[in-house]
């Protein structure tokens, strides 16, 4: 790396960027101290005190990304990719899915996705993929600029779309693509040979990643990253489990926002520190009797991805009726596998951990998870977000809904929308269904 590049990176990220983001955080914290909230405070608890810190951490991550091509190798990965390997090789790791979610919350995803659609990508394709490809083709992004990848890592444990999506990226950027194929677990547990198959792929990925990184993998470092991953995942799980308390101290809407680091900064020490502080704040809320929804009357579960461009709308709509969204299968997915991570056996445990995400298991497993969560979190009902462009998460929901109603007597609502494509969201219909569901719960 040249001295000029190092200086440019240091100046932009560590001096100017850090100072700017710290100032932003300081201003946000001062504002929060006055109890001000953009969300309806008549029904909702004040925002989490940690929110400005999380925002600073995430913004810093994207700022580092903006200048990452100056001083590091960059890898673009899927949300369920075994990132520890790349972290141990000092890659800057970028998650296009997280970037797309940022575009969703910033309500620019439709405009960006249209760039991909104009280039011929069908609207039936995942709206994350369309947002990402739209950014790649047009350069449009709310985070300034995305660094070019030197390596791509796709893991099929979340969907099959990533196979095509990452091939498009590999073709566009002309960089190597590592593909980790995780066999789908239809029933029960993964077979030994399936786990062995994934493990071998991980081992075979090392020389490719090493070649791009231009360094050898240090096993001690890999174990250290895995340790930090495990710690962060455990803390994340604990934070979510605190919502078994009645009334719930935080909402799944808070979790949707706070989950960014567990996805894109898993394996970093800062993520562990952040979640330790968040856990402390949640415990303080419980001790002081602060509930996420004032006068909580009913507790619901959310299935599937969030509707990123309508988080606040939905949070306020439910809170007005005293309904707290206390758990979600989506946020849970980044905590439930924590016990499987074994830092001393990074490859063996990664092979199993990355085969077991909820989206890589049968519909029956998801139903069992939902049933377990209904018990553990004392839930009164379930909202199944039928996500127009996330088929793997949405398939089976009609049967799951039927079974929840008939076998468990738990009311369940199928809500049609899309995680990132606001054109699919019909506000009047959604409000209408939710209002009727709320009346039914009463």
């Amino acid at each position, binding site marked *: 790396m040249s001295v000029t590049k190092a200086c440019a990176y240091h100046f932009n990220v560590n001096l100017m960027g850090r100072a700017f983001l710290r100032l932003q955080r300081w201003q946000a914290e001062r504002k929060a101290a006055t109890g001000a909230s953009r969300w309806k405070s008549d029904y909702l608890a004040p925002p989490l005190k940690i929110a400005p810190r999380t925002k600073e951490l995430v913004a810093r991550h994207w700022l580092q990304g903006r200048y990452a091509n100056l001083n590091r190798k960059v890898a673009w990965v899927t949300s369920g990719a075994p990132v520890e390997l790349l972290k141990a090789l000092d890659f800057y790791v970028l998650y296009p899915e997280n970037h797309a979610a940022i575009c969703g919350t910033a309500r620019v995803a439709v405009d960006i996705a249209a760039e991909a659609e104009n280039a011929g990508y069908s609207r039936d394709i995942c709206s994350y993929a369309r947002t990402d490809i739209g950014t790649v083709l047009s350069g449009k992004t709310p985070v300034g600029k995305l660094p070019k990848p030197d390596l791509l890592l796709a893991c099929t444990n979340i969907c099959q779309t990533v196979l095509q999506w990452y091939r498009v990226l590999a073709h566009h950027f002309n960089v190597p693509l590592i593909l980790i194929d995780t066999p789908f677990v239809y029933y029960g547990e993964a077979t030994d040979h399936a786990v062995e198959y994934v493990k071998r792929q991980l081992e075979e990925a090392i020389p490719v990643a090493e070649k791009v990184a231009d360094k050898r993998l240090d096993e001690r470092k890999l174990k250290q990253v895995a340790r930090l991953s495990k710690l962060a995942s455990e803390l994340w799980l604990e934070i979510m489990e605190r919502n078994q308390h009645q009334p719930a101290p935080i909402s799944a809407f808070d979790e949707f926002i706070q989950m960014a680091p567990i996805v894109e900064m898993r394996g970093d020490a800062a993520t562990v520190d952040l979640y330790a502080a968040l856990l402390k704040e949640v415990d303080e809320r419980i001790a002081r009797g602060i509930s996420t929804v004032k006068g909580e009357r009913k507790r619901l579960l959310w299935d599937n991805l969030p509707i990123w461009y309508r988080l606040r709308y939905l949070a306020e709509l439910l809170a007005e009726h005293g309904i707290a969204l206390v758990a979600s299968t989506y946020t849970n997915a980044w905590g439930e596998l924590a016990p499987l991570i074994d830092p001393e056996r990074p490859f063996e445990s990664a092979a199993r951990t990355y085969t077991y995400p909820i989206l890589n298991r049968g519909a029956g497993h998801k139903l069992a998870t939902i049933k377990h969560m209904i018990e553990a979190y004392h839930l009164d009902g379930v909202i199944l977000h039928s996500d127009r462009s996330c088929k793997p998460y949405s398939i089976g929901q*009609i049967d799951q809904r*039927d079974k929840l*109603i*008939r076998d468990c007597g738990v*009311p369940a609502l*199928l809500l*049609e929308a899309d995680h990132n494509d606001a054109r*699919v969201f*019909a506000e*009047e*219909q959604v409000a*209408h*269904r939710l*209002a*009727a569901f709320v*009346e*039914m719960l009463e």
Partner: protein
Amino acid sequence: MMKEVRALGVDVGSTTVKMVGVDAEGNLVWHFLEQADPRVEDQVERFLARARHETFEASQTSKVWNAPLVATGYGRKLVHWPEGHRPATRSVTEITCHAKGIYRELAHGGTLVDIGGQDSKVIGISPKGDVVDFTMNDKCAAGTGRFLENTAHRLRVPLEQMGQVALSASEEVAISSTCTVFAESEVISLIAHGVAVEAILRGLHRSLVKRVVAMIRTVGLVPPLMLSGGVVQNPAVPRMLEDETGERVIVPRYPQLMGAYGAALIALDLR
């Protein structure tokens, strides 16, 4: 002399607006229906003036007219009492109101299908009258009255004769599009190919009913099967629904008023 109206319910739908008045026992004693006006507030104000004139002023059993009002339907949030007169008001969704109205009218649970102008819904009602499950049409007008209305217009068949014409058909063509707009183009193409209007109409009804049956399956058909909404006036719909489900269809006395009736009953509880 007519019984005094103690509570009112208004159902502001996409196609029609309905108002119902109930007496102290919850009997449906007054009602009024009109095509929906885009100026909902003005229309509801007119309805209220009429209700006041026809019920309170006609009976004069009390000094103050303070019948509470519950609003339902898509325009329910636009309903306000006129200035200076504000008894209890609430807005409640049609799901709850329809269930309440039909349960009071028929005194049993089951599966209620309501086919309105721009939305249709299926509601599972428990033997005690509670809503146990419901589903509504997708983000399009397939399976609603508007689907037939649009194409009736194209075929130049008066709306009120559509059902009879469809039932008179000896043949039936399949309409593959469930989308109201695309079905219209499909119909135009069929006419161009010389297909008989009766056969097209029958096919259109079949398409609508199949869409509704798919919704019934989502909730699960627990007999008896009840049908309400403006589309009930079309005789082909209940008949074909019986064909498709194999269940006898029960239609209440005032199929279009069940939402407003339920709203009035909820209003009565507010007193």
